[in-house]
């Protein structure tokens, strides 16, 4: 029972380690650990893409360049052409920036000792609001202010139903910003919390076994570390999937806002 008490004490400490804390300065000029890692991810994104684009050749002969090109091709084909359709080319730079930034942020967080910037709700809110403003801007630009507002209700409805459907659609459009932000934050935060709990459980049981010189007590630790490895593999998948989902949903929203029904 000693180990369990230790575990719940450690879990409290773990939860607090996810709060954003200032590492330099304080107030409006401070730098929290999430901001710090976000700046690192930004630099990493810019460096990766710039280095790859400097070495572009007609026939790819470099594995790194090939990888970045494949990622770009993936954004262009799967996230640009399919959901947006006609006139997708002008949205590709925006979508590719979102995808590469979120992907690199998610993967940086998986390296032990690093923090994922997308595990902080402020960062994901910023990303979601950028996406929200972007698709509304393009919707208004294509259809005009009044036309865009009208286009919430699909044409061909009975006259009585139009205000109800219009209001529901408006509500769900506003909710898109919230869901984009919370989906990314929730997945990254919860994933890292689970990894942290499993890691903590492993170390607590091993410590208890060493202190008591009783190796039967170390057996649960084997199970915990097996769980930890499985969850880590799952988190690698989730890190990619969430970047993909965020980008493809932005693309789908752009497509819905700019297409005429």
């Amino acid at each position, binding site marked *: 029972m000693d180990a369990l008490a230790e575990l719940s004490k450690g879990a409290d400490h773990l939860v607090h380690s996810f709060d954003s804390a200032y590492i330099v300065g304080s107030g409006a000029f401070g730098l929290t650990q999430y901001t710090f890692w976000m700046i690192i991810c930004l630099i990493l994104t810019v460096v990766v893409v710039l280095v790859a684009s400097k070495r572009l050749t007609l026939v790819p002969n470099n594995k790194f360049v090939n990888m970045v090109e494949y990622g770009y091709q993936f954004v262009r084909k799967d996230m640009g052409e399919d959901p947006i359709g006609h006139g997708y080319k002008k949205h590709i730079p925006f979508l590719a920036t979102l995808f590469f930034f979120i992907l690199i942020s998610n993967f940086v967080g998986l390296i032990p000792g690093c923090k994922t910037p997308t595990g902080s709700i402020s960062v994901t809110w910023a990303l979601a609001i950028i996406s929200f403003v972007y698709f509304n801007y393009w919707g208004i630009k294509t259809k005009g202010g009044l036309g865009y507002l009208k286009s919430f209700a699909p044409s061909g409805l009975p006259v009585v139903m139009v205000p109800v459907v219009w209001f529901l659609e408006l509500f769900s459009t506003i*909710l898109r910003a919230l869901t984009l932000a*919370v*989906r990314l934050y929730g997945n990254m935060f919860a994933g890292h919390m689970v990894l942290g709990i499993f890691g903590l459980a492993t170390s607590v049981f091993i410590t208890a076994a060493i202190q008591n010189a009783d190796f039967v007590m170390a057996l649960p630790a084997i199970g915990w570390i097996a769980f930890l490895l499985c969850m880590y593999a799952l988190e690698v998948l989730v890190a990619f999937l969430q970047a993909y989902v965020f980008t493809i949903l932005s693309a789908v929203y752009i497509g819905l806002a700019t297409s005429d029904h």
Partner: protein
Amino acid sequence: MEITLGLAALKLVGYGLATFGPGLGIGIACYGCCMATARQPELQGRLFTNFIIGAALAEALGLIGFVLAFIV
């Protein structure tokens, strides 16, 4: 033995209930997407996009439950 349910515990129960519907919904949507893809593999791209839209709509309810657990 006296059992007391604090506000924090009730939040967790509420969030658990909120995940039930979206979980079912996404499961059904994924089933439909897989079935349709098996029948017409050439439409896979568009089917998957539609699946993502539907899953996002269903998931919104679960996410609202998650947010409410923080707010209330």
